[in-house]
């Protein structure tokens, strides 16, 4: 048995803003782990099912899914303020905006030091190769995308052992830079390390890390917020800035690391790269049945075009990929591109390169007790004979099977199904008034009223 002590609750970076949510069901249908239900006319997220992938955020037509973020002002609690930026940040801007201009804008925003996250990628590659040599487990699955790690924990518990326990570049870079500053004589308590994140999953991973005791970071700044701030500084063409402190330890490999195939190319044998959570789901399903074997390494990313398609990214993802590839090409032509520039010393692979245990956290159990679970399963299967089976979502659950699961686990009633309601009123088991009340409980008390501010209605958006 695995240690229970690590089974803390997931921290989630995605929330529903009830003042904006119209209960339209788009998110409920899009969620790959069926973590959303509609109650009282609003979407509600079931915490232990959510993997912070951001599919709900992508489809919400009224921007009612919000991403938690730390207040920028908190950086000023620290005299030394380091922003760790993924190369994606620069990739979002057109090529004519130089990296140095973006660095200067970050200085203006308040950071004293800028460190690119992928500076430590070559160490991550080394640690990964070491694991591939030492471990017989195949395929090895990359731990890079936190939404995928969580997806595996909740939906594919038998594959948890396949997750490669290598620290991702952000953790390596945070540890490296903190140590470097400390060695230069800055007291540890004066150093604040912040991460510019392209997605919600990374925020959640920082706030409740998987396979680590404590995060190496002091806070997270969302990429879209930073993007807007940088653009407004660049617009003013302010030139009096002294550049922040930076280290250029990047390699061409680091620049494209977060793009699709960025990791897979570094592994020998059969290494596949799959992006988009639906594609990943389909693939993991087959891997779990051992339908696909003899694969050595899997790079799995929740977003289309990997992190360039992160929900907090502002540039067009295809253009971002293009710019990063162009930048990598420039670096590839440098003489020292082949060598690893981050040396052991501040950071040691054996000490800092590897993650601890990752626990499975399976969802969807009908009951802890098998006898009870069997009874509930039988009941569910009987119920499915009656539910209409076309997954309309009018019950507030994404599909009929999920409603049935909710019913047998005591989280919904059969009368939530509008078809069953019709049957029940016909048989005088339910009054018209009761049926209306049920509908209002799911869809909100004003949902049956006329509402002209809906998208496409007469006074849309007013």
């Amino acid at each position, binding site marked *: *048995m695995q240690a229970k002590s690590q089974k803390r609750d997931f921290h989630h970076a995605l929330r529903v803003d009830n003042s904006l949510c119209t209960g339209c069901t788009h998110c409920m249908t899009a969620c790959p782990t069926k973590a959303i239900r509609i109650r009282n006319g609003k979407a509600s997220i079931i915490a232990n099912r959510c993997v912070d992938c951001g599919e709900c955020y992508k489809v919400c037509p009224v921007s009612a899914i919000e991403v938690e973020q730390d207040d920028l002002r908190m950086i000023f609690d620290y005299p030394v303020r380091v922003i760790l930026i993924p190369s994606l940040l620069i990739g979002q801007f057109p090529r004519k905006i130089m990296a140095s201009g973006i660095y200067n804008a970050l200085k203006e925003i308040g950071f004293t030091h800028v460190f690119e996250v992928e500076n430590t990628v070559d160490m991550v590659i080394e640690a990964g190769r070491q694991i591939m040599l030492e471990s017989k487990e195949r395929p090895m699955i990359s731990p890079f995308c936190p939404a995928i790690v969580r997806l595996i924990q909740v939906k594919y518990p038998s594959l948890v052992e396949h997750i490669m326990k290598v620290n991702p570049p952000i953790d390596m870079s945070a540890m490296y830079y903190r140590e470097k500053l400390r060695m230069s004589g800055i007291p540890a308590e004066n150093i604040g390390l912040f991460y510019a994140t392209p997605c919600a999953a990374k925020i959640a991973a920082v706030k409740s890390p998987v396979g680590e005791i404590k995060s190496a970071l002091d806070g997270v700044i969302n990429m879209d917020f930073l993007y807007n701030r940088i653009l407004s500084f660049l617009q003013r063409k302010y030139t009096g800035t002294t550049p922040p402190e930076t280290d250029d330890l990047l390699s061409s490999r680091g620049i494209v690391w977060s793009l699709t195939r960025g990791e897979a190319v570094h592994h020998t044998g059969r290494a596949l790269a799959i992006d988009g959570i639906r594609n990943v789901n389909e693939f993991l399903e087959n891997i*779990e049945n051992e339908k696909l074997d003899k694969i050595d390494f899997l790079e799995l990313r929740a977003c289309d075009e990997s992190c360039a398609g992160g929900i907090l990214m502002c540039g067009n993802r295809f253009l971002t990929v293009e710019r990063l590839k162009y930048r990598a090409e420039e670096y590839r032509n440098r003489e020292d591109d082949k060598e690893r520039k981050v040396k052991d010393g501040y950071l040691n692979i054996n000490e800092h390169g590897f993650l601890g245990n990752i626990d499975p956290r399976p969802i969807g159990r009908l009951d802890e007790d098998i006898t009870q679970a069997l009874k509930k399963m039988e009941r569910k299967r009987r119920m499915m004979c009656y539910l209409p089976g076309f997954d309309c979502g009018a019950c507030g659950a994404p599909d009929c099977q999920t409603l049935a699961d909710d019913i047998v686990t005591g989280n919904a009633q059969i009368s939530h199904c509008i078809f069953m309601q019709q049957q029940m009123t016909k048989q005088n088991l339910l009054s018209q008034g009761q049926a209306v009340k049920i509908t209002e409980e799911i869809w909100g008390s004003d949902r049956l009223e006329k509402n002209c501010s809906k998208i496409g209605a007469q006074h849309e958006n007013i």
Partner: protein
Amino acid sequence: MQIRHKIAGGDFTRAGNVASAVKKILQQLNIDHKQSKRIVIALYEGEVNVVAHAYSGVVDVDIDSEKVRITISDKGPGIKDIEQAMEEGFSTATPQVREMGFGAGMGLSNMKRNSDFMEIRSVPGEGTLVELINYIRPDAS
């Protein structure tokens, strides 16, 4: 609880559908994921055998609080020498089937490895029946 699924011979695109459906149920029943994985792998191999060799088949899954019992019965050519068929690497699959990545001769031995009990009965020219039993040990790991 009883579940029954049909398998069509020759339809490789759907080989694995029964295993996937059963896997979802095992997960919901809170069956230890390591045991559940063995069951799903054994069932998948059995499913592929029916698809590759037989004309049609039926899978019956019977789950109670102690064990999962699976019987896979098919109408097909049957197995002439079961002992020989159990040997790793022994295969009667056609070159076409092998080209698709199936028929490496590991199916039956893999089923044996992933079940707690396995019995094969076969009548050449009529069909084959495989019975698999896996015991559920909730705290096995």
